[in-house]
């Protein structure tokens, strides 16, 4: 293993279509290269972990995929790949394609936000874990082992609110970071020592403020009626959440951020920046800045940069007109190409004795089934990596008694991630017939 040299650092370079990191270099990101005593997989102050940690990435879009070109007609192994899956051809044995899975939910655009949770936000109150999404459920178990318990990226908005994929236990949507520059700064922009002192002082101030306003809230409770008190509970929960956040950030403030090895990216537009966001996710996983990431491909994914002037949502209501379908497929194909490129990247990164892809479960799909008909059934679902046996198209029943909840897959994912639980959302168990070696 070579120590990092200036020549190697020069080899990290940013192209307009994204980062290019050559395979063998990455193994050389040793503890020394990463900075004072921090190694991959370590708690601040602890020794490097012997086994590599598990990671999870979830990618979703707003309008699903054109089903005739997404779902293969054959099931089992070595199935013929329809046009939208062609970009994934080199990875056919690295992923499993599922058909027939969904959350049994209706609502068209107003239900897609349940993609990672299985519960619509309006129904969250009646569920014991609210409408927590699978990524946030996993993030709850990180406990400060990484600087960021999870990273939520992608479009903030979109039609009827956009994807809105990530939800906390208390029913709030986790707002995503939407640009490469912002994400880069979060991951790599380091504080110097005076900044660190200043940060510490800021944390002290915030803690002091939180104490004061907590007292105000308690005093206020006495003056309110029942309904208002319930509402004020949100404030108390928020206080606790922020206090936890601050405690974590204090802990991490003295740990230097890893070197990026690449210059700060410029923001162009969401479509052109998509590969850059994927690359930053890979870098974030690789530097153990986080082990969980989600990416929402929502409202600012537009056709303009791909030379398509019609509105994406309009095209998704293709009405079987071939020219609409052709344009729609161009937009969807681009998303598949970028996803395939991400899998390439993860596969090319060494992570202990396996590849990063082997240790990362990558879920790809949408909360929208058939956008033309606004259905949320038979969702497009791909699961790659994570150490599962892959290569199959697994088709589950689309009607009748034997329907299988998509949450069963999520439960399987959570257990693979190391979460000790036997249920998630409306799961009836883990996904039968699918599991780790």
């Amino acid at each position, binding site marked *: 293993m070579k120590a990092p040299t200036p020549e190697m650092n020069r080899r990290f370079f940013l192209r307009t279509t994204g980062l290019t990191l050559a395979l063998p270099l990455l193994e050389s990101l040793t503890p020394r290269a990463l900075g004072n005593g921090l190694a991959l997989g370590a708690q601040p102050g602890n020794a490097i972990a012997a086994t590599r940690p598990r990671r999870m990435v979830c990618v979703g879009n707003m309008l699903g995929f054109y089903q005739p070109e997404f779902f293969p007609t054959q099931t089992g192994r070595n199935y013929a790949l329809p046009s939208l899956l062609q970009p994934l051809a080199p990875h056919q044995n690295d992923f499993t394609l599922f058909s027939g899975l969904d959350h049994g939910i*209706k*609502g068209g655009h*107003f239900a897609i936000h349940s993609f990672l949770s299985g519960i619509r936000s*309006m*129904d969250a109150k*009646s569920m014991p874990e609210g409408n927590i999404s699978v990524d946030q459920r996993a993030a709850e178990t990180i406990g400060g082992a990484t600087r960021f318990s999870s990273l939520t990226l992608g479009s*903030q908005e979109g*039609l*009827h*609110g956009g994807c809105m994929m990530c939800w*906390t236990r*208390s029913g*709030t*949507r*986790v707002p995503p970071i939407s640009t490469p520059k912002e994400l880069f700064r979060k991951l790599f922009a380091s504080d110097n020592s005076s900044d660190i002192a200043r940060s510490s002082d*800021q944390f002290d*101030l*915030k803690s*002091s*403020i*939180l*104490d*004061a*306003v907590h*007292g*105000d809230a308690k*005093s*206020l409770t006495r*003056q*309110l*009626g029942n*309904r*208002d008190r319930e*509402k*004020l509970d*949100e*404030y108390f*929960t*928020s*206080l606790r*959440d*922020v206090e936890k*956040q601050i405690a974590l950030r204090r802990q991490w403030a003295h740990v230097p951020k890893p070197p990026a090895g690449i210059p700060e990216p410029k923001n162009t537009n969401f479509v052109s920046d998509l590969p850059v966001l994927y690359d930053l996710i890979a870098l974030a996983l690789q530097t153990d800045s986080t082990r969980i990431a989600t990416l929402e491909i929502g409202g600012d994914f537009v056709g*303009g940069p791909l030379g398509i*002037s*019609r*509105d994406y*949502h*309009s095209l998704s*209501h*293709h*009405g*079987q*007109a071939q020219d*609409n379908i052709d344009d729609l497929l161009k937009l969807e194909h681009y998303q598949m190409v970028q996803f395939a490129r991400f899998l390439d990247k993860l596969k090319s990164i060494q992570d202990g004795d396996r590849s990063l892809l082997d240790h990362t479960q990558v879920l790809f799909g949408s909360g929208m089934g058939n956008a*033309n*008909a*606004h259905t949320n059934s038979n969702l497009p679902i791909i699961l790659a990596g994570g150490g599962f046996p892959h290569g199959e198209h697994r088709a589950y029943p689309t009607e*009748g*008694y034997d329907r299988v909840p998509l949450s069963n897959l999520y439960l399987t994912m959570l257990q693979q991630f190391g979460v000790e639980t036997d249920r998630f959302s409306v799961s009836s168990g883990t996904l039968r017939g699918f599991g780790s070696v």
Partner: protein
Amino acid sequence: MVARPLRILFLFLLASLLGGASTRAQEQIEAPPFALPEAIQQFLADYCVTCHGPKKQKGERRLDGLSLPVEDHETLLTVQEIIDVLTLGDMPPEEAKVRPPESAVPDIIAHLTQLASAGHERLVSTGGESVLRRLNRREYLNTIGDLFDLNMTMFDPTMSFPRDQTSEHMDNIGDALRTSGHLLAQYLDAADHVVEKALGATRPPPEQTWHFNDNFAQQPELRYAHTRVHDNQFMVLYEGAESVRHEGGYGPILAFAAGVPADGYYEIRVKAEALNRVHPYDPKIFHSDPAQPFRLGIVPGQALVGPLHEPQPIQPQLGEVVVNDGPPAWYTFRVWLDRGFTPRFTFPNGALSIRDTYGKVLRLYNDQFPAEVRDTQGIVQLRAVVMRHGFLPQLRLHEIAIRGPLDALWPTASQQRILGDHACDLPGIRKTLTTFATRAYRRPVQSDEVDRLMQVVTTRIAAGHSPAQALMDGIKAALCSPAFLYLVEPVDAAAPSRELDAYALASRLSYFLWSSMPDEALFAAAADGSLLEPAVLAQHTRRLLASSRADTFVHSFTDAWLNLRNLGDMAPDRSTFPDYYARNLEQSMKQETRLFTRDLLDRNESIIRFLDADYTFANRDLAQLYDQPDAIPGAAAHQFHRLNFPDPRRGGLLGQASVLTVSANGVETSPVTRGVWLLENILGSPPAPPPDDVPAIDPDIRGAKSIREILIKHRDTPACFECHRKIDPPGFALESFDPIGRWRTHYRKNVPIETEGELFNGTAFTDVVGLKRLLLERKDQFAHMFVDRLMTYACGRRMEAIDRAAIDAILHSTAASDYPLADLVAQVALSQPFRTN
């Protein structure tokens, strides 16, 4: 699109308001509510329970124990499912031996729908009480501005706040607005920014001047051409703000990229010249209006945020002047700039996209160019050639002189307002915080609250900070307190009437009409309790309404009621509707509706004008959209004038481009979308959403069929027809307007538009004029919907059955004068729901 998560069909409301007789075939049977559950249970027992009951549970559904009326979510979902399958004819299945008579099914669907809507109301009810309501983003922003006397033109501490949750399109509904850890973290950061900005200045900024008359490099794309053609001796603007490629739409002074050194007013003098307004080319190449004199604008920019020649998130219009043809002349602006912001010049009525024009101009007018350049290729050379030899319409800025900050106050306005002249010792700090918190919490602060703020102060001093800094930190804490962030309405357990105390009432009134904290006069009326007297309340209501600050009421209310907040979400296709971008129509059409509403308010005119009017307010670009190209002369192009309509096709909301655009999807129109919009926002009777499994019908815009023919299925299927006979006809009448509101008589391929139809009660119309006349007959229904919306917005909660009496009272007292708008607002403020929790 209608955003209704659950079905709400106010059948009874509709039926009772219609009043008149209707043909039996089309009218729902009004069954008395108490009989419904039994009729339904009987139906289920007869036709459903065999397969969905104790013996068999097909599809895992069991219907024999259904508990009616609907009181929980589970039952509501089941009832909706039954409605869906019956409507689509999915149940009973083909092979069922026992089937209900065809005529019985619509009645059962109607009964079930009514149970569902009543159940839904019950489930979302807040018991007619406002739930603790936090300030939304815009209210927070306005309040900060007022609290600190801060100029908020380009300062937005809420930029990273999560989006506000809405209910019925309203963004100020207490139980819908949520607080989260994310938001609270933002509040902490925002408090820091605000206080440091408002109070952190330590010395008065000296007035400075800057002068630029050369080296006007603007952006990389123009560098080659501008250097070669005129050596950067002046700044040149070519295009408006809406181009895609941005070349010469935003002109920064790159030498001044760091911006001004201090917040304040700045005088900006520009020696500007308008060139080639009259040019030899087809105006369509530029998509600009040659009759309009050029206008020069200023927006701020920050180098830190991104390239200065491109749009930025914060770029309010700071000033605009008309630059007449002729030699260069001096123009003076006086604009506010924050520290770090630099002025950028714009050309609001410039070309749509200059980059596309170089090649076109050279190609189409080739012989007007010198022989040696006629074959020029490549954008870099094309620019230079056409700039040098052509006659591109453009604004040239030869000299720019900036001076400021002008007459800067010291201490600053904010510092004077907040810090006063108390000493900076602990007792002095306590006094300052007491005064501040009283204003911030909108009622006298309690001593334990001040104690907690002082605790922050003393902790900071102990950590080594100066008393002045510690005071600022105490103020930050107040900005994160629930007493500031929420509109608190304390409950007096002893008083069953739940009347608001004077302070809570002052806040409610102020946020209703000004979306901000009470001003001094209103606060004083709360302090001495006089605000609780109806006469005083009425007087303050009128006072607030009369102020220009009530514009925020007009903006926010129309954003919510007419869903104009979403104008631009489904942006019109650029190639089909270039004028939408070239002429800044989105901005103008929103402004039109706001001015129209403001005018009704100022003149206390009837809200019936929303249904039909013979005038509107338009600038020249809008007038052209409305087929009155010469109504507003070029010289007055950008001003809004009253525009009279010679015929009744336009006039009222149904003829306003904002409404027509927000109810289309930017590419094509849909009678269903517009029909739903009308039912929802004009008649207040939104239809139930369609069953989820209905395949979407995508109009075929290439073919020879009209949308009417494609939607024939809505009429052929009885279950669909039930709702669509209400939805489609108004939508067909509105087909006369294209996706951005232009009048049309034919679709593409000369397919004529058929606009005739019948309202749900059988009354017929032939076009939008007839539709409006019929709507005028329903003016009481419109007024009812309008008052409901006003009350919802004013009280920050959804209206419920319990509020019916108050709404009716307002309607009765204003019906005779046809519901004048200002009177309605005043009555809302005096109503019982407004004055109680």
